[in-house]
């Protein structure tokens, strides 16, 4: 679509020249949050390469390694298990790396599901209007009255009722992605609808209608690019929320099974041994979850302000 830029301004140059980059650089909190997020992303996505153990391969586990304390706080610790082990003899550090990976996958996937549903329904609702708009928005209103976790629990419960336990463990990740995605679409739909209502009466949309472009083309080509800003902000903030929701569900035992533990599952497993004094099994995954969500939310807050021309 777009014309070629002259070769003198490279893509990188234009990026480092932009307002967004400047606002990013001038906020130390944001730079720190971005660094933490990047670090977590790297260790999570390269977990199979970086982790010292493969914690969920039963063949590599030995019960005699069970419940070893972290190496820095107790002489009983071993350097092979720097953050200690749980009651099965699994390395907590490796479990966290693999768990963060799963948490991030679920987080991203459910944000994408929510975004796709929300943007599509929001566009249709705003552009078509009338009865279609009323129906979609009333469904959204009804859904907003239920907490997201309740909706996710309901969907998960229904799926569990339909399929067998073994099958459920296999598809648990899809169920939870779908459940979280379905409970978060409302925010996108409302935001997009609001923006569409503003944009569709602008004259550039009318100009496209005079040319005779189909409504679908107008929505995708003209309206959508003008609503991406707010959607991006919601997506970033929702990523943290989705990770937390997944952790909550897994902690309650309705999320990911212990064969595929996310951070939430690890916290649940740690909770079981907390009473007997093995605090490290729960504290380290908890700290990881807190750091991840905090960093992502700080990024989201910055993005919201950076993209809002009124706050510049």
């Amino acid at each position, binding site marked *: *679509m*777009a*014309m070629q*830029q*002259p070769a003198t301004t490279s893509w990188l140059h234009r990026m480092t020249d932009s307002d967004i980059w400047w606002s990013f650089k001038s906020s130390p909190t944001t730079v720190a949050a971005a660094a933490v997020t990047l670090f977590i992303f790297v260790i999570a996505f390269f977990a199979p390469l970086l982790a010292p153990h493969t914690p969920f391969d039963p063949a590599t586990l030995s019960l005699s390694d069970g419940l070893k304390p972290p190496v820095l706080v107790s002489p009983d610790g071993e350097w092979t298990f720097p953050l200690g082990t749980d009651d099965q003899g699994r390395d907590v550090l490796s479990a966290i790396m693999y768990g963060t990976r799963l948490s991030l996958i679920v987080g991203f996937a459910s944000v994408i599901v929510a975004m796709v549903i929300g943007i599509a329904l929001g566009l249709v609702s705003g552009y078509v209007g009338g009865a279609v708009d009323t129906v979609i928005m009333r469904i959204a209103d009804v859904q907003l009255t239920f907490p997201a976790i309740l909706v996710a629990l309901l969907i998960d419960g229904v799926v569990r009722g339909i399929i067998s336990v073994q099958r459920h463990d296999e598809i648990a990740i899809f169920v939870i992605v779908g459940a979280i995605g379905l409970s978060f679409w409302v925010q996108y739909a409302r935001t997009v609808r609001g923006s569409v209502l503003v944009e569709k009466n*602008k*004259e*550039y949309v*009318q*100009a*496209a*209608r*005079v*040319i*005779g*472009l189909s409504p679908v083309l107008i929505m995708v080509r*003209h309206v959508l*690019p*003008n609503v991406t800003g707010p959607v991006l902000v919601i997506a970033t903030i929702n990523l943290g929320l989705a990770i937390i929701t997944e952790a909550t569900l897994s902690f309650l035992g309705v999320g990911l099974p212990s064969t595929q533990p996310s951070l939430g599952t690890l916290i649940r497993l740690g909770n079981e041994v907390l009473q007997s004094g093995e605090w490290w099994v729960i504290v380290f995954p908890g700290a990881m979850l807190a750091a991840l969500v905090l960093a992502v939310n700080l990024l989201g807050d910055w993005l919201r302000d950076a993209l809002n021309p009124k706050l510049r």
Partner: protein
Amino acid sequence: MPDGASMNQFVKIEGLKRYFDVSAPWLVRTLEGRPRQIVQAVDGIDIEIAKGETFSLVGESGCGKSTVARLVVGLYPPTAGSIEFDGNDMAGSRSRADMAALRRRMQMIFQDPYASLNPRWRVFDIVAEPIRAFGLAKDKADLENQVGERLRQVRLTPADGRKYPHEFSGGQRQRISIARALASHPEFLVCDEPTSALDVSVQAQILNLMVDLQRRLQLTYLFISHNLAVVYHISTRVGVMYLGRLVEVAPTDTLFRRPKHPYTRMLLDTIPDLDMTGRQRAPVAGEVPSPINPPSGCTFHPRCPFANERCKVERPKALPIEGGTVACHAIEEGRLGVEERSYAASAA
């Protein structure tokens, strides 16, 4: 100026009506026993536009002139009446391709140069949009040529195509808008107050460009404006609208020098003239009534100094007079004589 009926009609609008439902939602209406509310934005309008001429619609805000523009280009379907473009009824059923062929020939220029260009698109893509939509370019090089040519036509450079709309001033943006409208080689342009958002000096620039383009490309304009000086400058014929109806249509010179309808006279009295003739002017009294419940008979009667009982009950018909038409009982009955005006031609 040939007589209106005998001209070769390029655009023919007959009995055009457009009502908008502005009622409260059904539930509220039922519970509170409120009636439906219908705005009669356009209430039966006949216009004939000859090829190559500029037909202007003037009137106060809310008289329905912008609605007429949007009806003509098909942004709204009419409630009643027909629009014929070069002998083709726009409402007639035809294939997508035939419809596109008709749409290609008419384009629109909008009022607000800040809202009429997509802020996320480069100027090149904005001007290229109609060319792409109608498949008018053979290949990429041809497309670039055509867009460059259109930009030069409105006195921009092809290099401007790389920029975004926010890098241009209001006048330049309006020229981009014109370039986009010209991109599909249209024959008929609907201009909805194209200069009202611009500085006076820039207005003249845009108007001169439009006149120049009209001469070179044999364009036909439907020009919507509330600025009589602009209308005087650009039009061949003028239609005066009041509350969704045409009260007077006349060749520009006739309208400005020998206005007939009392409303036209009232509008002309609002133009300051440089000659300082010292003539007593009738101030524009009252304001436009709500188009939801328009007055009976002649809708202008509550503000008209010449209204009588007949004006309150009977809707006046458009009667031919001096190369135009006027809808007024007082003129028809001879109660109101024609008065000569000297309109300062330098006003534009």
